[in-house]
């Protein structure tokens, strides 16, 4: 594929070190609601990388060297300020017999697309055990349900017995049962794959840095709105929606538990990594899922509480507002100014700017469909409007609404990035 660098006169003659520093500054200014030299751009390439490289989606995981090469090529062609390639790898899931995800080549054809398989892994009758001792329930009941190759963990004795010190060692024969041994071996394998993937990511970050592209600090610590946490990985959508009617008290208690646990995790993880951000992909709180009354009871206070606690700890929540949040923007307007980042998928981005422009840095603005089936001129006109209205006074990072660019045509992405360089420079 020929490299056709986008219109790039703004950066001619700059060294990678200079570009690296400028891009980092641009992002950091936008996050702090300042006005950078121009509107920064973020590209989440995903499976578009495979399309550009003429390989199958599955090959992105099987041939990480190729993936890295394609990512640098895409970065050089489009010249964004931040770029991401493939989301994780199926290899740990494969080793664990993961029933919760499907990947190209693992549960799906080689051209498939990563999908989360939501099931009722926690039954309504499990609430009491879960609330009584979540960690023990997580290891001995939940994990064997989610991961086929970890079923042996169900043979362990209650984890709390480790509090028995020396006397607990008398139970150790239980660790020799073949299913238990097999489970620990599967975990070892998954760990190995994870470490290898992290090695690839580090190598990729280094290659990108060499070309002047800074790493993205946002996504290394992940947390969920308490409602989503209980809904996504425990009760499933049907289960949690019924709990809202039949077991509201238990649901709220569970939210409280997962909220405290996640905070503990997010605060310590972001400290260890030295990256003061926590990423929240939101799922079931958007317009249409639940009423505002339900939102006020089950969703928003718990999420906001977590965000405030993180902010207290100098961590910036980067929140992906999936779906539409047009009816809920006033709630978001209550968040402390300049202390969170909002990534918007399908919300009316112009309305978002009006309501939240002074509250949070806004990411998003480009509908994926326009990059799939639009016309270059149409993209230019739309980009100009977004630059002028949403980009006004800074605090904006231009990106696609979906964190995945599969199906986008490279020449339409060219049209977009060119237009941002034309209309996105602050005077």
């Amino acid at each position: 594929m020929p490299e056709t660098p986008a219109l790039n006169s703004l950066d001619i003659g700059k060294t990678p070190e200079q570009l690296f520093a400028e891009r980092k500054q641009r992002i950091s200014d936008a996050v702090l609601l300042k006005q950078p030299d121009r509107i920064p751009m973020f590209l989440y390439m995903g499976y578009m990388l495979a399309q550009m490289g003429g390989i199958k989606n599955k090959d992105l995981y099987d041939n990480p060297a190729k993936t890295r090469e394609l990512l640098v090529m895409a970065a050089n062609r489009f010249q964004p300020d931040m770029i991401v390639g493939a989301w994780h790898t199926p290899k740990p899931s494969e080793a664990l017999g993961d029933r919760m995800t499907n990947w190209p080549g693992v549960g799906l054809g080689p051209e498939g697309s990563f999908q989360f398989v939501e099931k009722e892994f926690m039954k309504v009758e499990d609430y009491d055990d879960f609330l009584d001792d979540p960690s023990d329930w997580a290891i001995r009941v939940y994990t064997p349900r989610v991961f086929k190759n970890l079923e042996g963990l169900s043979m362990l004795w209650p984890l709390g017995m480790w509090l028995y010190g020396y006397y607990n060692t008398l139970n150790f024969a239980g660790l020799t049962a073949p299913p238990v041994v097999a489970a620990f071996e599967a975990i070892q394998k998954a760990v190995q794959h994870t470490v290898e993937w992290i090695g690839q990511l580090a190598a990729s970050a280094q290659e990108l840095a060499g070309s002047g592209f800074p790493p993205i600090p946002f996504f290394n610590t992940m947390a969920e709105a308490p409602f989503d946490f209980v809904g996504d990985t425990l009760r499933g959508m049907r289960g949690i929606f019924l709990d809202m009617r039949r077991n509201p008290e238990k649901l709220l208690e569970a939210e409280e538990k997962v909220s405290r646990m996640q905070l503990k995790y997010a605060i310590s993880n972001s400290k260890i990594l030295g990256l003061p951000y926590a990423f929240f992909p939101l799922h079931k709180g958007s317009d249409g899922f639940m009423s505002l009354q339900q939102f006020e009871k089950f969703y928003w206070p718990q999420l906001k509480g977590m965000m405030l606690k993180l902010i207290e700890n100098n961590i910036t929540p980067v929140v992906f507002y999936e779906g539409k949040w047009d009816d809920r923007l006033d709630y978001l307007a209550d968040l402390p100014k300049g202390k969170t980042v909002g990534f918007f998928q399908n919300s009316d981005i112009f309305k978002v700017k009006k309501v939240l422009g002074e509250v949070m840095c806004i990411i998003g603005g480009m509908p994926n469909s326009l990059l799939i089936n639009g016309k270059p001129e149409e993209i230019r006109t739309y980009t100009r409007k977004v630059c002028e209205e949403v980009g006004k006074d800074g605090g904006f990072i231009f990106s696609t609404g979906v964190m995945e660019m599969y199906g986008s045509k490279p020449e339409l992405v060219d049209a977009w990035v060119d237009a941002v360089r034309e209309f996105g420079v602050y005077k």
Partner: protein
Amino acid sequence: MAGKLTKLLADLKESEAIEYVNNALEKGTDAGELMTEASEGMGIVGQRFSSGEYFIPDLVYSGEILKGIVELLEPKLKGDKQKEAKKLGKVIIATVAGDIHDIGKDLVVFMLDVNGFEVFDLGIDVPVQTIVDKIKETGASIIGLSGFLTLAFDAMKETVDALKAAGLRDNVKVMIGGGQIDDQVKNYTGADAFGRDAMDAVKLAKKWTGGN
């Protein structure tokens, strides 16, 4: 004429509705009649969803209450079932190949059903050929394709192309829906229309079958 059960179901009074059905059956009320009342209740739930009074958790709950009622009624229904109301038209609904998202699809199925359409729900990750075969089998005139992934746009396009290849394209109207769907995607896939939500699907289906 809305009966007591209709109101209890419409208001999502689960335990009261179940208790009412148990008492009514004991008193010898005809199970078919109760079934009709329950269906009317679901119709009201659908209306309240359309008007923004009810949301997805409420629909899920209403379905669960209905399930409990049907379990009580089924053994008493003497083969005659409930009086089959005249259906407005046949609609095939599927989440396209490669995509396993079902929330939006299930809502559309629910809303079309309570609005009087005969709905054939083919489920998720449905191969193109299955849809073509189902059109031939049922003679359905409306196809609804659902998809959440950006990847689904291609599967939708392939499905529409397959309808053309099978010589069926002129016999059916195709509507698409899902998180990312807009006019651009509609043009890309060759569908006749797209809907932003389940109410749009009902409007389109009514328009295409000459209803209002």
